[in-house]
């Protein structure tokens, strides 16, 4: 019995020692990297958002605020909108948009719209399309998504917001039409959303 206790206590204490040493090491590293991690993440987010807006269209960090769910955004839960400012005034907005009808489910997009209703750019954030078939919507794989840059509802009438196969103006890759159709539709709807909520989106008053 005594042997049992002695073994239990000595092993317990040894493990305590190692635990404390290890935790201390971790705690130290954590403290050291905490600030850097936050800054890196921030920068990363900003860099991603910046891709959807032309260079020079904003001069300050984008500000996030929440927008309510809207069928035009394809969202079912409140999402984020990011306000871009130039010279202190709202110069554009980046919307989180969901295209619900991809070949393999939802496609999450970031749609950057300038104050004048022109598209700054569109980026796919998340999708489950077939690799090699529907994934040319990623900018790293194909410049296809850059077709949207600079377009607006005025420049391209509603009838043209379709892929070529359906009589519209957008290119697509043979064999995969569902994906571009979904994105084109989603972007067009996002533009409509912007037209309707332009004022409040650009005001960014809730700062």
């Amino acid at each position, binding site marked *: 019995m005594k042997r049992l206790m002695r*073994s*239990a206590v000595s092993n*317990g204490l040894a493990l305590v020692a190692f*635990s*404390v040493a290890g*935790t*201390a090491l971790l705690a130290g590293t954590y403290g050291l990297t905490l600030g850097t991690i936050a800054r890196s993440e921030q920068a990363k987010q900003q860099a991603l958002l910046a891709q959807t807006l032309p260079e020079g269209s904003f001069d300050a960090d984008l500000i996030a605020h929440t927008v309510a769910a809207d069928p035009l955004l394809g969202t079912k839960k409140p999402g984020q909108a990011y306000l871009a400012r130039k010279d202190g005034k709202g110069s554009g907005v980046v919307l989180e948009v969901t295209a619900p009808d991809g070949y393999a489910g939802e496609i999450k997009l970031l749609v950057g719209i300038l104050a004048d209703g022109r598209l700054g750019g569109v980026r796919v954030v998340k999708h489950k399309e077939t690799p090699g078939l529907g994934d040319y919507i990623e900018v790293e794989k194909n410049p296809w998504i850059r077709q949207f840059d600079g377009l607006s509802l005025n420049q391209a009438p509603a009838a043209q917001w379709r892929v070529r196969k359906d009589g519209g103006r957008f290119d697509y890759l043979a064999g995969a039409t569902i994906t571009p159709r979904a994105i084109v539709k989603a972007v067009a709807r996002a533009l409509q959303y912007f037209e309707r909520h332009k004022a409040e989106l650009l005001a960014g008053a809730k700062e």
Partner: protein
Amino acid sequence: MLTAILVMALGGLLLGGVLGWASVRYRVEDDPLVEKIDAILPQTQCGQCGFPGCKPYAEAISKGEADINRCPPGGEDGVKRLAELLGVDPKPLGEGLEHKPKSVAVIDENLCIGCTLCIQACPVDAIVGAAKQMHVIVADQCTGCELCLSPCPVECIHMEVVHEDVATWKWRYPVYTLHPTRPH
């Protein structure tokens, strides 16, 4: 941060305590591995491996003190099965060791002087007889270890290879042509 350290310390104390207790409480004394190795060895008790019998060799293997390729009676097949058991690569029999066909010792009755030396040498008591009596080797019990050969003062013991007969004959692994027989 302090909480983190405290939580970890407490967890360490608890786990360490339990493990320390369990290590003493549930210590396994006997190594069942030895039994498993021993079961593979052919039990000739011949000592060619350099150990006095199969069990000591099995113990040495399990402790990592002996290689698995020291047992000639077990042959390549035995080495392979040991390798499988221990999860190591099989290897050829060690230097100077070779697998011999199964043999039994035979005493030449005309020469035996009944000295009992071979009886003492036989590890499996397969030799029967008493002092000044002719000794006889029970062929069924002889493992072919050859340990009785050297003690015999008159060299009356020799090994005889056990040949296959109708009763012990086995169907061979079928050899059949995979190549076409050339027509004519």
